[in-house]
Structure formats: C-alpha cells, structure tokens
C-alpha cells in the first residue's frame, strides 16, 4: 500500500532526525562530563567583555610571513601572556597573517605592554649576580645556558688583545660596565628581588639606557645588568650547530652562532674588548630576551668579526631553540598592533541581550507572517524553525566545546538572519505544494510532487549559500569569520530539517482530515488555490478568474464535502466556466 509505505518512510525520517538530535545531546553531554565542556556556547569578547588585540607582521613589500614564523610568534606571545598570570587567554593565528590575542576581563597595563612589545633582544653587561632567592623555581623554560653565576658558556672567537679600560667608580657611570650604575635603590631592589615575580608587575622592564634587575630564564640566577650595549636588531642571522675546535675538528658540543651587521659587529667588538679585561661576573655578557636572561656567557676574548658563538650546556634542541629565539627576536619585521579592543562586560551583556531580543522578535514576525499566509501551515513553519534552532544550538555548543568556537555578536546576527534563510526553504516547499494543488492534484500527491521539485531548488540555493559561507570563512578576517561560520552551520541544519522533519511532517499531516481534506484554514485548500485545470499537458482558454469566483462562492458549501464530492464539484464548476 502506497499510503503505509509513505507513512513508514516519514516516520523513519523523523526517527533519523531524533537519532541525530539525541547524538548531538549525547556528544555535548560527553564533553560536559569528560572535557570540562558547557551546555552553553562560549562567548566571544564582544559579548563577554574583555580585550582583543590583533597583531600583524610588519612586512616589506614582497615579503611573506611563513606559518613557522607565525607559530613561533604565537608560542612566544603565549608564554608572555601566561607569564602575566592571565589564564584562559586565547592566541590564534588568523588568515595566515595575523595573530589575535583574546584576554577575558580587563587585563592590566603590563600584560598589554608585554604582548604588544615585540620580542626584544638586548645584550647587556653583567654588573652583579647572585643565586636567586626566589621562592619557586619554575622548571619550565629551556635550560639554555650555564646554571651558575659564573656560567659555563664561553664567548670565543679569534683572539685579539684587548685594551684595558677598568672604570673608576664615580657618581656618574662612564660606561655600561661601570658599577656606579648600582645605586642604593637598585641594590635594595636587587636584594629583595624574587625571580618568581619576574613577570608579575613589569619588574623586568627598563629603558635601554638604564640598568636592569632581572633573572636567568629558569630563575636560577638574578642579575643587575648594565644598559643595553648591542640591540637585537643588529643580529642578521643565528643558527645552531656543533662547535668546531680551534684545529677545525668538530666537537660534540652544541652551540649557537650569531652574526651581527657591521654596526653590531663594531659595538660588540667595543664591548667585548672592555669585558675581557674585567673579572668575575663583570666579565659576563648577558643576552636578554624580553627582559629575561637567556644566557650570560663569559667573555674569554674580544670579538672583532661580529660572529660570536655561544657555547654552554646546549643540547641539539636547546641550541636550536635559542638560535630560533635569537633569529625571531632579531627579525627586522616585528609585529605591530593592528587593532586593540576592550569591551566592558556590561556592553557585552547588552549586546548579547540585543541580539537575543532581535532574534525573538524576528522569529515572532516570521511566525506571524507564516500564519497569515499559510494558515495552519504556519504552525509547521514555527515547529520546523524550533527544531532547526535546537539543532543549531546543540551544534554550536558542541563546536564551542570541541573546537574552541566562540559566538560573537556578528555570529548572533548571522543566526538571526538565518531565520529568514531557513523559513525561505519552507516557503519554497509550500508554494510548490500549492502549485501542484493548483494543477489539480490531491493533497497527498501534491506533497510528494511538490517535495521532489522543491528539494532541488532548496538544495541548489543552500549549496550557493554554503559556498558563500565557506569562502567567507576561509578567506575573510575578523568578524566576518564568526558570521560566516554560523551562517554555514544554519544552512546545513536547514537542509537536514527540511528533509528529515518538515517533509515527513507534511506527509503525515497530509493524512489527517484537516490538512488532507484541504480545510479552509489548513493552507492547502484546493478551492482557495483555484485548482482549475488538471493534467500538465492540458491548456485551455483563460478560465482562472471565473473559476476562482465560482470557487469562492461555493467554498462554504464545499468545505464539508469529501474529496470525491469535491472533485465532482470541481468538474461541474469548470463546465460552468467553459460555457
């Protein structure tokens, strides 16, 4: 029996939809239980409040930034942000170009400065050093250099006798190694300095022409360093490799090879010529990256060719890491802040509320219009929209838990606008059914025939929409992505809902007396639709106007007729018109 197979198919589709929804709920439940997930989607900063900074590389024309460079930048920035005690910061690359840092809440000035300052590499002479009196020794951070104040690192190059330039202590420092830099306040700061607080309050930030109190990267040693002698921008290249002995035989020791430009070479030569004459820690030269000492090798000989090598307790990995860091810090293209946005929490809440209110109003308007146009079928629109809403919500929540997707204001706008996209599919479908009814099919047949044609239209329209969403998501930057993402999800949900819910629902409703019988308020009343000519091959003289007049005048009487009676009446009605 055709009737039962249709019904069975319809029910099977509905069951499939139920399975999908239950699976989505299950997946969400699983991420809530096992992965610290939530039942609500995570919100982006413009809805939650917080700070978002977009950094873009400063590139000379024709230059390209590589993914490797970006990833490196992300990991350095992540270290900096986390070091500032900010949890839940998100750092992403965007469009293969930009780095977006999102920090919830209102981060302090130091954190912002830390992110915004480029990886700053400096060479400062060591004035004094001490074993760190820090409370916590953080094990993380690459153990790049020596673990004692004296350091096992050596700066070695072609030997060159140095001119002695021992400074006489005076009130005004005469050079960067002058101990006169150590003022009583600085001494006090040094004494009380806790390496664990290295990043807490911008303690390791000092102008380049002043002394700096800071620690070894692994917090093992703390230093007072002189002013910057050579800036990191002077490094043209850095690489890691096995150090060759003086006879040219490769040793098993890993080291980092640095190359300076001509100005840097000159500066480095001047400094090392001075340092080589000094004793103890003053002989050490600190390499400072972002305010932390990554290595403080001793100066054995003055370096004249601008190609120092740093040896120490390097492994292959740590040497590579340092050379990368040096290279990265020395990149001529730093990152510049392209945009920085701070949204207060109240503005975020009010934006979210506005979005939700707009959505509710939009939904009500669409529902009201659907009832006006399609009578009881408006109910099908509203129920289908609700199913689509539930599915969309579950998918977004799931992706938020699993993929770190965050719902932004533009995304909310995309969702609200999508109400129209989804409802449009139902309209295309209903209008198709009506066309078939106008052609004289019965309600059952009209639903099936209408569906076949409508689905093709819905499919191609949704494919076009999906292309738009995917292209925008892949290629566009910023807000556009969030918008495209939600629009894309809803387009897919639309296809699922219209195929697995709306159509089966119509099939089942078509069996009821109310809809199948074409009740006046069902939206499927063949009389009101002026079902005048039957058979697609038959065309006859204009008859529509007359038929409709007849139809409307006799509608009241025919409302209670059976389909068979109505069909009979149809034919007689047409005869009247033809006469």
């Amino acid at each position: 029996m055709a009737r039962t197979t249709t019904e069975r198919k319809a029910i099977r589709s509905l069951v499939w939809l139920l399975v999908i929804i239950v699976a989505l709920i299950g997946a969400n439940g699983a991420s809530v239980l096992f992965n610290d997930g939530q039942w609500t989607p995570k919100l982006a900063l413009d809805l939650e409040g917080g700070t978002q900074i977009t950094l873009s590389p400063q590139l000379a024309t024709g230059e390209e930034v590589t993914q490797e460079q970006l990833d490196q930048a992300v990991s350095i920035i992540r270290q900096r942000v986390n070091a500032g005690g900010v949890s839940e910061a998100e750092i992403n690359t965007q469009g293969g170009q930009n780095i977006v840092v999102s920090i919830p809440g209102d981060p302090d000035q130091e954190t912002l400065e830390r992110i915004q300052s480029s990886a700053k590499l400096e060479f400062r002479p060591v004035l004094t050093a001490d074993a760190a009196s820090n409370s916590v020794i953080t094990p993380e951070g690459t153990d790049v250099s020596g673990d004692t104040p004296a350091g096992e690192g050596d700066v070695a190059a072609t030997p060159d006798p140095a001119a002695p330039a021992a400074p006489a202590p005076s009130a005004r420092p005469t050079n960067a190694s002058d101990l006169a830099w150590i003022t009583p306040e600085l001494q006090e700061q040094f004494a009380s300095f806790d390496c664990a607080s290295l990043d807490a309050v911008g303690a390791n930030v000092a102008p380049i022409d002043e002394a700096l109190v800071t620690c070894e990267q692994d917090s093992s040693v703390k230093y007072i360093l002189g002013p910057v002698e050579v800036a990191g921008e002077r490094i043209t290249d850095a690489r890691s490799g096995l150090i060759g002995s003086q006879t040219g035989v490769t040793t098993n020791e890993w080291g980092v090879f640095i190359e300076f430009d001509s100005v840097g070479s000159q500066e480095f030569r001047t400094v090392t010529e001075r340092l080589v004459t000094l004793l103890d820690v003053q002989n050490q030269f600190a390499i400072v990256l972002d305010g932390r000492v990554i290595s403080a090798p001793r100066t054995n000989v003055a370096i004249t060719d601008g190609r120092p090598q740093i040896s120490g307790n390097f492994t292959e990995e740590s040497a590579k890491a340092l050379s990368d860091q040096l290279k990265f810090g020395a990149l001529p293209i730093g990152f510049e802040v392209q945009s920085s946005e701070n949204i207060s929490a109240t503005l975020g809440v009010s934006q979210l509320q506005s979005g939700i209110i707009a959505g509710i109003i939009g939904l009500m308007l669409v529902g009201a219009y659907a009832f006006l146009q399609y009578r009881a079928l408006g109910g099908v629109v509203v129920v289908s929209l609700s199913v689509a809403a539930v599915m969309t919500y579950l998918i977004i929540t799931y992706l938020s838990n699993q993929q770190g997707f965050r719902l932004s204001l533009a995304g909310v706008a995309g969702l609200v606008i999508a109400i129209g996209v989804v409802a449009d599919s139902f309209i295309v479908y209903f209008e198709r059914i009506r066309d078939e009814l106008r052609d004289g099919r019965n309600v059952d047949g009209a639903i099936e025939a209408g569906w076949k044609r409508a689905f093709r239209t819905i499919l191609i329209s949704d494919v076009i929409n999906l292309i738009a969403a995917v292209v925008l998501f892949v290629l566009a930057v910023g807000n556009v992505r969030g918008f495209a993402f939600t629009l894309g999800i809803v387009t897919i949900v639309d296809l699922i809902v219209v195929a697995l819910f709306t159509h089966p629902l119509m099939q089942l409703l078509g069996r009821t007396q109310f809809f199948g019988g074409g009740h006046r308020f069902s939206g499927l009343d063949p009389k009101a639709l002026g079902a005048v000519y039957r058979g697609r091959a038959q065309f006859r003289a204009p008859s529509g106007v007359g038929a409709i007049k007849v139809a409307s005048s006799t509608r009241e009487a025919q409302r209670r007729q059976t389909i068979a009676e109505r069909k009979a009446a149809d034919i007689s009605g047409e005869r009247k018109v033809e006469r």
Partner: protein
Amino acid sequence: MSRLTQFGNDLYTGARSFDFIGRRRLWYAIGAAFIIVAVSLTALRGGFVFGIEFRGGSEFRVQGTTAVEEGTAAATARAIDAVDSVVAASSPRVSIVGGDSVRVQTEQLTTAQTNDVRNALAEEYSVEASEVSTSFIGATWGEDITRQAIIALVVFLLLASLVMALYFRTWKMAAAAIVALFHDLIITAGLYGVLGLEITPAAVIGFLTILGYSLYDTVVVFDKVRENTLEDGAESRRTFAQSVNLAVNQTLVRSINTSIVAVLPTASILFIGSLILGAGTLRDIALALFIGTIVGTYSSIFLAAPLYVHLRENEPEVKKQGRRARAARSESGAVR
C-alpha cells in the same frame, strides 16, 4: 485565504500576468539609471565615508551614563572636555548611541593617552573606568579586511558561477544571475555612499552576505524558469520569452514571500540594533542586508530573468520555438 494567495492563483493560471520580459528595456534602463545615480552621487559626495576601522584611530565607549539625559550638546561637551584634558585640540567625534552610551572617536592615541582619556571620560560621566570600552585600530586593519573581502568576492563569484552553470546546464543563467548580483552590490553600496553612511567591517559583512541572498532569490526564479522552458519545449505554443515570463509570474508570490520572510529578521536586528545599541555591528550588518535583500528580489525578477531571455533568444533552437509558437497561435487564435 489571503489576498496574496488569490493574487498567486491568478498569476499561476495566467489570468493575471505582468509583462516582465517584454518591457525589459524599461527595466534595464531603470537599473542602469539607479547604478548611474548611485555611482555619480557617491562620487559627488566625495566617495564613501569609512568607519574608524578603515581610517585608523581610537574609539571610546562610555556605557550606562545618565549624562545622556542632559541632552546631546551637554553630553558631547563633556566628552570633548575629557579628551582635551589629555590631548589638546584633538577635536574628537562624539555621538550618542542607544539610550545611555556615548561614543567618542579620536585620532590614534598612545597606550598611555588611551588610559588617561579612559579615566577622564569615566570621571566626566561619573561611571567606573571599567564601564568605558576602548579600542584602537591601526590604519592598515581596514585595508586588510578590504583586501580579503575582495579576494573572497572573486573566489565566491567563480565558484558560484561554476555551480550554477553545472546545475542549470547553461552558463547563460549563471551570467544573468551574476550581472543581477553586481547590480545589487552596486546599488546597496551606492546607498551607503549617497546617504553618507559609514562603511564599517560589519557593513562589509553585510555586503558579502548579499552575495548569497541575491543568488538565492535568482536561483529560485531560475529553477522555475528552467522547469517551464524544458516542459514547454519546441512543440509549445508559447514562445521562449512567454515561457520565462509565465515562470516569473508563477514564482512572483514565492519571491515576495521569501523576501518578506528574509527581511523580517533583518529588520528586527536593524530596529533593535539602532534603538538599543546605536551604531554598531548589529545595525551595520542589518542595514546592508536589509537594502540588499529588497534590491536582490527586485533584480531577480526584473533583471536576471529578462537578461536570460536576452542571452538565449538568438539561439537557433529557441528561435524555432518562437516561430512554431506564432504559427500555432495564428491557427488556433488562442489568447495564451
């Protein structure tokens, strides 16, 4: 049943018919006129007004202040005072947005200045400093968005043309749809230019979304056109143009309904966005879409379909259909 349904019935049976195809020169002229007006008025106004995201600068937003009740002038003066106390003679742009917030845009400020202005504004409007949102946008940010948007536009047009050409099995439908799409984009952007509305990244999102929408409408119409022209075939009594015209008439109610349903949520965002939040993401997206959806519906009916006929009518097969139709008509004398 509603009046629109009756109207739909008449259109479907052909009892009532609008001559969309026959008067196509008129529609082309109207479309061209709109485009010329949009472009020339925009040019006369001195081009588009770009939002701060494209100009670069700093923006502050004071949330939840009662000072707005004092009136626009007083609230504006407060903002100017606050900014001037930090950066002299900076002439900030101040606007009242929504019921209780003030937006202040200045030239690009340093981090320290930004902080100072924030505190000054908080004091001036007697709110917590945390209620003052700040943003800073480098001038290259907008360029970046624009460049990516243009790349996205080109890729989308190529892909969509390909898909449509495959689906409809003729490149002519795709071409007609794309021309209509450009018409929609130019007119929507033109309205921004003519009215001097700020173009923000959110507005650009709106423009890009029009892509999908405009084609959606056109695809629905073309699907029916294709169905009718295939069914009618060479033996039909209707000419090719008549088949297309009937299809457009038959989908007219559908087009109106889908557009109204698409416009309703957009209008609701536009309304809420302007009323509660004032200028911002919601309003900018919705405004572009609102205009674009309406123009898109118009263009699918009045431009895309006639253009398609224009592209096809010189094909030998189609011409043949026309001759047979005329011959058949003269024999039978039928009006249709």
